[in-house]
């Protein structure tokens, strides 16, 4: 079985990251923005795993576990915020949530 070279993984990872980041920047629905963030996290995860495999060490996989844990926590907090948003403002449009401005 021929192994997939490292560069392919990196290319896929950066492509996923770019897609996620674009979603973060341009989409207005908070839920979709949130999905973009998740996409970026998993792109980073993929890069970790690719390097871990290429270098035959476990530290990259360990880092990936931390990222998964952080993503889970983030999902919990982020979804809770969104529920609160809908209840209070009845909207998920990030453009309308700008109370912190001067």
């Amino acid at each position, binding site marked *: 079985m021929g192994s997939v070279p490292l560069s392919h993984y990196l290319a896929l990872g950066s492509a996923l990251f770019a897609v996620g980041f674009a979603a*973060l920047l341009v989409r207005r629905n908070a839920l979709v923005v949130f999905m973009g963030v998740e996409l970026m996290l998993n792109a980073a995860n993929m890069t970790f795993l690719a390097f871990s495999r290429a270098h035959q060490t476990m530290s990259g996989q360990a880092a990936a576990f931390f990222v998964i844990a952080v993503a889970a926590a983030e999902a919990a907090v982020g979804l809770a915020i969104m529920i609160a948003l809908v209840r209070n403002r009845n909207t998920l449009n*990030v453009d309308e949530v700008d109370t912190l401005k001067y």
Partner: protein
Amino acid sequence: MDWLSGMNPAEGLQGALRWIVLFPLFGAAVNGLLGKRLGRANVHLVACGAVFASFVISAIALYTVSFGDASRITDLWWRWFWIGGVPVEMSLTIDRLSAVMMCVVTGVGFLIHIFSTEYMSHDEGYWRYFAYLNLFVAAMSLLVLGSNLLVMFVGWEGVGLASYLLIGFWYTDEEKAFAGRKAFVVNRVGDFGFLLGIFTLVGLFGTIDFEQLQALAASITPDAVLDAGIFSGWTLGAVITMACLFLFLGATGKSAQLPLYVWLPDAMAGPTPVSALIHAATMVTAGVYMVARLSFLYAWSPTAMATVAVVGALTAIFAALMAYAQNDIKKVLAYSTVSQLGFMFIGVGVGAWWAAIYHLVTHAFFKACLFLGSGSVMHAMRDETDIRLFGGLRKEMWHTWATFGISTIAITGVLPLSGFFSKDAILHGAHANPNIFFPWVPTFTYLIGLVAALSTSFYMWRMFHLTFHGERRGMLEHRAHEGGNAMVGPLWILAGLAVGSAVWGLPLSGGARFENFLEPVFRAADENIARMTALGAEKLGVPVPHEPAHDFAAMLPGYLIALVVALIGFGIAWYLYLGPGKQIPAKIAQGAPAVYRAFANKFYVDEFYRAVVVVPLHTTARFLWRVVDSFTIDKLFVNGSAVLTGWMAQLFRYFQDGNVQRYAVVMAVSAVVILWVFLG
């Protein structure tokens, strides 16, 4: 009953010494914490009982060191701390000097406690008063018994605290509270000197224990130049002089000498028995006691001795002059106390140690009696203190008149009462003790002392005549009444002691009894003086002077002079205030108003201090408060930095538009730029 083991007579006095301090301390604690609920009878039972217990132990101690095997007993209570390799022990020592002091403190203190039970009976702060009074006795005992300088200093500060509390006892009166503060602050100046003196001795000898100091001081070469320690390059004699002068500064504060005497007259704001106990009989003599305790050290410093004697003499005459024109019965007694303390300092300054201590003891008796007598008069006259309003009180208050008269005779130095012998012992020491270093000192102190004795006689008789003789001049409708047994009893006992203590000072062929009694204590000092004199005589090229004789024949001329002086003072006072010259004082006051005002205003010393010390300090403090603290620190630094932060925040808040995605863009672009710069 483990705690009583210290009292076991089988263990001797050693373990019992601490109880002299502890009894009044417990009394103070009980009255101070519970006194309000105990009721008056229990309060004074506790207070008087505690002091009486101390007196009993002190009396046993006096008996033991007088007739027992050991003339010096030390009770090592606990090891307090080490500092720089110097052990400081909480230990108490009784020898003949401290035993005499203790008996005076607790004995006179007990009588004054008894007197107070009636004098203060109408005061609502009864329990507080007795708590403070017991606290004072405890602190004074610690001062007297301490076997090193630091324990003495603890007591020294303790009596200062008790004095402050009692002067400002009626603290709702702003003026009296101020008098308390004044006493405390002036004493702090002296205490500062006292501390510096202790530090100097630690730096020089590495010990503050009296016994070790005495041993070290026995073999000193004053001209030796020190080559180690913090005083390297100094001569030994110079360091000792410095230490003695610093300690004497402490004494001038506590014992109200020039230039720090100003607090004592104001201290009369306290209750009169307090003035009797603290500001006449005991606390103010602490300075004399301290110099006597360190006599072996002072002996090596002719400069310090001369300073002590001259300051004492100047204080004696200065205070006596100020007493001339005082119309407040307690103020006259206060200045008289300052003056008599000056006499004691003449005594220790010229090396007549025993005479100074003897005068201290006799003065404690007759001055306490005088103060209690004035308290008795005030008690009878609705707390009036102006002697111009009194007169003719002899008819109404026979006991007070008699005891006051006896004590006045004693203080003015008339044969055969104790004051005559004690004052003359000092004056004899002043002119007879040779001083080859400062040959003018004996003549100077003796002459000043004589004038001060004349003045004493004058103002005391003036006050006595104005108060008790003639006709009542004011408060005509008021009928004075003699106090009860609790007031009259102590008066008579003290008057009796003022008479009886004369037997210790009779000029017997082998020296006075008191002199022989204290000889073991002051032997070291006398030996050091002899050594110093021998060294000085060699250096100055003069013959070593002879020891002065002090038997009856040698004392007789001095006795006659002093007696004549005292009688002249009496005569002038009688002539001016009872006799045909009644109009003269008013004429003097009118004819030379500037002179009269100078006397009446105490030569403007308080005003001088106010202008030179108080006002500049006040101004500086105000500057520090207003400009440095309120403006610079509070406004400029604290509030200023907050205001600055606010401004900056105002500026930067325009960068926040609340749009999360715009933040994300900025972040991404910044990250790209940073990566570009650092990686590219």
